[in-house]
């Protein structure tokens, strides 16, 4: 099989559907922008933040693999590379959304941070400083994405990571942990300028971990039915299922710590964040978030049999991906949308655009994968146990 195999296995019908979803979504979003202009920007922010999160998730998977030397997933490493390779496309879009929307942040209004004790926040959220920071985070991530995906694609087929690759991955983890934390604070947490939570960055980290792993699982099952038939084994699926279960529990753990501590202490400026989300029409979405991101995947993935079944894994992955959208929706929209959630052209359009454009971007990146060239595939075919064993 060759590179074209990927495209042929993504049937023309699927590609057409993705195109249609992207175009219709874009159209709906434009219409929504005319009808409900105040809801356009929050949905764009949601879309951009989600998309960049998937790219970062791909890079994180590359870094984890390089640093732990866990080679079991090398059989489908093209997936995480493709995920990371979407970042150079999505990061500039998010930068544009952020620059265009600085004025939409509540702290942009004068007098919002007038308290004397807000001196630090006033300086930190200076619009120019905010913009410079946003651009530098995204630029740093883009550079890492280009370098890491390149290094990963260049790697010799069955060998371990190169020394340079390991160093790059270690540097990425250090830089990522610092920038991702600040980026989440800047872009999302500051939507509620009087609220702060130290676990917020960890919470988002849990979100991108589980959602990017869901994306990888989805792609792995799909590729198993196509060009990577021999490279993705039942053991791989079981490991992916176990990891998905673990990451989902990690997300739940951080969710619980943040929620429980704020619920328990009931400090007014903190509790306001959850008060608005657990009342009125937001409440069903709030509880659905927990069910979709943790309870259902946990219950389904617990038996061994379901971790080995591609069909179940696909369904759970789709659920977790939808859950990630809902999770970010619940971070952003209650701050900008007020008392009740609304599903309209903006929301549906952004969702459809995300699915369509994201899918096409991913396929495009996958096509460039060296792993799917004939030579390497033959090298991988049938030697799955090499990947399945941990290094001795």
């Amino acid at each position: 099989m060759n590179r074209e195999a990927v495209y042929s296995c993504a049937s023309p019908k699927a590609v057409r559907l993705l195109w249609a979803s992207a175009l219709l979504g874009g159209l709906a979003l434009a219409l929504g922008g005319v009808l409900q202009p105040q809801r356009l920007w929050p949905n764009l922010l949601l879309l951009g933040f989600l998309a960049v999160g998937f790219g970062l998730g791909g890079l994180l998977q590359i870094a984890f693999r390089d640093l732990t030397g866990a080679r079991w997933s090398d059989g489908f490493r093209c997936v995480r590379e493709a995920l990371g390779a979407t970042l150079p496309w999505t990061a500039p879009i998010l930068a544009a959304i952020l620059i265009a929307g600085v004025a939409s942040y509540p702290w942009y209004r004068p007098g919002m941070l007038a308290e004397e004790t807000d001196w630090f926040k006033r300086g930190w959220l200076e619009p120019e400083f905010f913009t410079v920071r946003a651009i530098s985070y995204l630029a740093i991530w883009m550079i890492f994405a280009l370098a890491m995906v390149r290094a990963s694609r260049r790697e010799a087929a069955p060998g371990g990571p190169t020394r340079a690759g390991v160093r790059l991955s270690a540097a990425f983890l250090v830089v990522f942990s610092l920038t991702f934390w600040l980026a989440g604070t800047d872009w999302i947490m500051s939507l509620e300028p009087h609220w702060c939570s130290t676990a917020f960055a960890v919470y988002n980290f849990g979100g991108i971990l589980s959602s990017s792993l869901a994306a990888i699982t989805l792609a792995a099952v799909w590729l198993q039915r196509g060009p990577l038939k021999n490279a993705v084994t039942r053991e791989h699926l079981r490991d992916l299922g176990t990891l998905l279960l673990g990451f989902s529990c990690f997300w739940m753990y951080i969710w619980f710590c943040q929620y429980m501590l704020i619920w328990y202490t009931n400090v007014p400026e903190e509790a306001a964040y959850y008060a608005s989300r657990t009342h009125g029409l937001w409440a069903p979405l709030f509880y659905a978030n927990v069910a979709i991101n943790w309870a259902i995947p946990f219950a389904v993935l617990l038996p061994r049999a379901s971790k080995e079944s591609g069909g179940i894994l696909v369904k759970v992955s789709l659920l977790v991906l939808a859950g990630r959208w809902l999770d970010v929706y619940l971070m952003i929209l209650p701050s900008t949308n007020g008392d009740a959630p609304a599903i309209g052209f903006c929301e549906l359009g952004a969702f459809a655009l995300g699915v369509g454009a994201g899918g096409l971007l991913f396929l495009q990146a996958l096509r460039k994968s060296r792993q799917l060239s004939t030579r390497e595939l033959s090298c991988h075919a049938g030697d799955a146990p090499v990947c399945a064993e941990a290094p001795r």
Partner: protein
Amino acid sequence: MSKRTLVAVFEHEADLMRAVAAVRAADLKIDDVYAPYAVHGLDRALGWRPSRLGWACALGGMSGAIFMLWLQWWTSAVSWPLNVGGKPWNSLPAFVPVAFEGMVLAAGLTTVFALLAVARLRPGKKTRPIVPGVADDRFALVLEEADAAFDAAAASKLLRNCRAVEVSERVLEDEFSPLGAPAGAARTRLRRRLNYLLLLLLAVVVAMVFLTLPDPSRPNREFFPDMAHSPAYSSASANPNFPDGKTLQSPVPGVLTQGQSPLHYDATDAEALRAGRELRNPFSAKDAKAGARGALVFQTYCTPCHGGGGLGDGAVALRGYPAPPSLVTGDTTKMPDGQLFHIITYGRVNMPAQSGLLSPEDRWAAILHIRSLQTPTAPKSIEAKP
């Protein structure tokens, strides 16, 4: 139940794995394998299905979690609802940690006890290795000679081809244990007698519990009285530890209550004059707030005798009590603030001491009001209505 078996000994894991594959290919029945460690992948080679102990774990975990959730809800919301920091009776988020710990504890213990039960392991169980070194570096493959068709010689050859270092025929007693006959008959008898004795003892104890009826009129025996009976004396009871025999002691002479400032004057007129020389009103005449307070204090405590304008025509005086002198004319106008303060504090002639009623600040404020009554522009409007 005993059975005839063929036991082959191997020195290497790889040989064992090959032998297992060969034996299964030859369609011979494998009774068991003995190994010094969990050989990786042997279960798949033997074609054994995964153990179902996972179900014990799941069941134990679920019941642990449900029980702890129920216990917390029942104790906190039903049996003993106690307001803790304004939290709801059913504080679900706060109950999660303990429910989780209950789940882990129950799941872990259930799993281990299930293993011990299923594998028939128990403390003190006697066992003998099927071949020496099986706990060290040897592997033993045990084939069951299921029927007469079993060809021991052929099987031995097959095993020796897989580099078995030793092949022998053995009769094993028990399905699971390679142990020979159980312990000697005498010991069994002894154990049985001991068991009967213990059973009898148990019966006696149970019978005693049912035969001795509780007497509700007598208190239970206390082993740790703890805080049920306080060793402290009650304040009104006699106390042998003090010379006066009282528990509640009078304060030390000259002690001040909290917030009180000392006033070193006696209740005599000479001392009043000294107070007049030494004390100053902490409030200035321009202090509107103190003035208003003074007016209120004066109206509440002074008007019944002195009258609203300080003329000495209060309701009490009008009904025959000796009238006080006017505050707005005569001597009073010449007295300094300190002397007035002394008079208000300790009383004079028919006027009782007001120190118990008025705080020092209120007394000073009232003086402020008296001064304002004394000035010609003083409003005479605050009249006490008889």
